[in-house]
């Protein structure tokens, strides 16, 4: 008897549950079709935190526009901009590749790439040649840079990363050593270096914090002044890519990101303004 009753309860519960689901779905789909005022940004993980911060600020003056930011790396930014999945693709590259030729590019910031090591690492300076040799696998021991006798853990980004291709292009002549660890975002690179005493990697200047140490390259520190002044070699622009000329809300938002207040915000958080 109790069994039938509970079966009855379950049945009612299921029915109610299904009704609720259907109601929710109807509520959703009535907001259906792509909502007009929405922008999807995707791509560079170096610019991602800044895009999120700026979109939050933008929401204060234009609460009707929904902006979502996905990461995924510069190549994803280019691809999704081309296919229209993302209205704004973000790419931090020295030079835009062949595929991006059809897209309109706007420079929103400049960024430096710093060589970073663990805070327990006493090394403070590194030459370009040493960087090349380390990432090629020719230089394998910290002893050769004046530290302990221990192998160097090389950490790199995945193939589609703008930071990685910029780094390899600017240093030149790098064929990544096979034993290099690979991580899939600037944030996870930083996390790996924090956890591995003998690691070395490259990191977007905008994502450096006190938990990693950036090395000076051939005597030149990776600072805002040096990057803007052109003295620090490893720097690249961050592009906002759109299919065709930006128009409508996309144009508004891009203009906003180029505005003085936004550039101030970018600068304060560690990236370099476009000019």
């Amino acid at each position, binding site marked *: 008897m109790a069994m039938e009753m509970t079966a009855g309860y379950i049945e009612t519960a299921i029915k109610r549950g299904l009704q609720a689901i259907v109601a929710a779905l109807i509520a959703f789909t009535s907001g259906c079709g792509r909502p007009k005022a929405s922008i999807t940004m995707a791509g560079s993980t170096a610019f991602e935190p800044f895009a999120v911060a700026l979109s939050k600020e933008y929401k204060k003056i234009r609460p009707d526009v929904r902006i979502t930011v996905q990461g*995924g*790396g510069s*190549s*994803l930014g280019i*691809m999704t901009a081309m296919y229209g999945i993302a209205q704004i693709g973000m790419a931090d590259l020295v030079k835009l590749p062949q*595929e991006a030729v059809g897209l309109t590019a706007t420079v929103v910031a400049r960024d430096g790439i710093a060589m970073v090591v663990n805070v327990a690492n006493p090394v403070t300076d590194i030459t370009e040649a040493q960087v090349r040799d380390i990432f090629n696998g020719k230089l394998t021991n910290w002893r050769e840079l004046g530290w302990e006798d221990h192998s160097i*853990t090389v950490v790199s980004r*995945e*193939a*589609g*990363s703008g930071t990685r291709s910029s780094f390899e292009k600017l240093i030149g002549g790098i064929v990544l050593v*096979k*034993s*290099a*660890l*690979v*991580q*899939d975002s600037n944030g996870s690179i930083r996390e*790996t270096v924090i*956890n*591995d005493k*003998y*690691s070395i990697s490259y990191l977007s200047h905008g994502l450096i914090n006190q938990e990693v140490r950036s090395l000076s390259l051939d005597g030149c520190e990776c600072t805002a002044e040096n990057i803007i002044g052109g003295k620090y070699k490893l720097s690249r622009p961050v592009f906002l890519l759109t299919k065709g000329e930006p128009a409508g809300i996309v144009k508004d938002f891009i203009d906003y990101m180029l505005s003085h207040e936004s550039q101030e915000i970018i600068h304060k958080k560690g990236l370099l303004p476009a000019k």
Partner: protein
Amino acid sequence: MVERIVKWLLAITAFSALASLLLIALFVFKEGLPFILKTGLSDFLFSSHWDPSHGKFGILAMIVSSLAVTAGALLVGAPLGICGAIFLNEFMPVSVMRIIKPAIELLAGIPSVVFGFIGVTVLAPFIQHNFGGAGLSLLAASLILGIMILPTVISISVDALAAVPNSYRDGALALGATKWQSVHMVTLKAARSGILAGVILGMGRAIGETMAVIMVAGNSVQFPRSPLDSVRTLTSNIALEMNSAIGVHRQALFATGVVLFVVIMILNAIAGVAIRRKIRGK
């Protein structure tokens, strides 16, 4: 009349469901097979030169890594799991089993990213301090995966052991065997195919795992020469390169999917045979 409509509606439903399942299989094969045919199976499967920007798509290093990680996981998970199942089912009272088995099965549902996280925060530093290397390694991946498949192996092995009729055990004991003797000479042999099915299921889970592996394995494209080396499995490769892959590169990832598909199908077939042998009665 209503009957006919209903039957048609259900037929359409069944067809759409099966079609969508078929869709994914067909899609993966449609994208991946032409690539394999164009590049050549041997260049794809037997070359370890993976360099998409220069058109090189040899996945051998990753096949070996996937196999190594899976083998490692089985080395950890299978013995522990089977021993656990034997102990729980044969040497523990049923009341204990009634609590512990569900508890273990609950653990099968813990998301893999949680296991991966434990691997990164607890296991990798441990390996680095005590064994060297970067910590993120084949060893770390094997250990974490081994732990992840434990609930599956234990649960299915217990089911297999419980399915062995008590008459088998009683017969052995009546002949003067000790409990342990009856277990390893009679019960285990009888439950063999069920346990094997459980191990194969665990193997399938290990091969297909992505998130936990990306977090702890290091993701280097190389042959592992020691358990402390960093490795990249087939699944990790798909996840890492999916975002940036277009054209031929993307087809190569689908081709990897085809390889995984085929491997899983073979495993399923073997498990199916094993289970059917068990049902037919030994």
